[in-house]
């Protein structure tokens, strides 16, 4: 890995390489460059994940001439695809050095870096939604229970905007969540469930299921589950595989080709 990065930097394939380095006991993202090749010995794969592609996109927004390499897990790869589809970066601006999802002998290829799923207290399990549940498991609840469980989760929201700020594919200059007509300012909890549903709808065809939003949420709202459902719908209805496809997503107004119409679906409401 280190040799490859050295090679990339020396041949000028990338001008900057974003990897991780241990600083004061914390694995932190670090920018390696041609000037400090000696530092490459400290390059590690961190168990704590940061959205390196988001950092790279932010640098590229200011210095578009750069070429940046990143250490990439599957989720980073998907996010780079989505950013390219949404024309935030040009193809080739970000080079990915693929690494195993989890630097662990236990699980060679996990859904994310969390090896041990978090366990939750009895109150949350009784009244709210268990973050470890799957979309299919949610279907066993009836409508009334689903509603009260989701509202229990949404009403905890502190409106920290952490889910948006950490999201690798949230790049809009004007965010609907800051639109006064949609989400009024000054109140807590924010307008439930509008706040979360607005974000959920905007994640359709965009969310790469990296789980960073849920990790950043101070009140453990099962955001990943919600966005999984949203992307599941997009896949069922429009056959669009978010993060894997290089076409415009179904709700996009950009691009020349018209995305497919909704197909008739069996679960009519």
């Amino acid at each position, binding site marked *: 890995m280190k040799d490859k990065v050295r090679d990339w930097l020396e041949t000028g394939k990338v001008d900057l390489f974003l990897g991780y380095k241990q600083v004061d006991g914390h694995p932190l993202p670090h920018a390696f460059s041609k000037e400090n090749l000696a530092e490459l010995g400290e390059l590690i794969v961190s168990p704590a994940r940061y959205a390196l592609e988001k950092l790279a996109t932010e640098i590229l927004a200011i210095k578009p001439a750069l070429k940046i390499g990143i250490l990439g897990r599957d989720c980073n790869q998907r996010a780079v695809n989505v950013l390219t589809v949404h024309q935030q970066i040009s193809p080739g601006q970000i080079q990915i050095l693929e690494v195993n999802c989890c630097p662990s002998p236990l699980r060679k290829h996990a859904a994310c870096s969390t090896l041990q799923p978090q366990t939750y207290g009895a109150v949350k399990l009784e009244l709210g939604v268990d973050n470890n549940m799957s979309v299919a498991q949610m279907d066993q609840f009836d409508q009334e229970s689903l509603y009260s469980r989701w*509202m229990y989760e949404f009403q905890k929201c502190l409106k920290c905007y952490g889910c948006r700020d950490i999201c690798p594919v949230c790049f809009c200059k004007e965010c609907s969540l800051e639109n006064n007509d949609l989400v009024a300012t000054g109140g807590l909890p924010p307008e439930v469930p509008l706040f979360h549903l607005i974000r959920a709808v905007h994640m359709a065809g965009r969310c790469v299921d990296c789980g960073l939003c849920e990790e950043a949420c101070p009140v453990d709202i099962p955001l990943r589950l919600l966005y999984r459902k949203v992307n599941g719908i997009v896949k069922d*209805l429009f056959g669009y595989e978010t993060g894997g496809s290089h076409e415009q997503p179904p709700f996009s107004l950009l691009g020349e080709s018209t995305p497919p119409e909704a197909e008739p679906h069996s679960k009519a*409401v």
Partner: protein
Amino acid sequence: MTKKRMTFLKELLPFIGLGGRLRLEWISSAEAQKFVKVVTEFTEQIRNLGPNPLAKTYGDSLDSLDLAPAPSEATGSGCGCGCSKAAAGA
């Protein structure tokens, strides 16, 4: 685009427990009978579902916090996406 979004929302809303409160129909100004039929049907469907839980919870949480701007129109209707013609909540 509208059709795509509505089909999408029809799948999403049941997931958070608000199913059956959204409907999209194309009705021409010449189709008075269809309009009557659709509105009657949908009103009946909504009435059977009972009051919109969203309006209640939202109102309550604001009352208890006592910092109420008047609940916006969106919370009163079925979905809040502006499709008032077909999505009139009961």
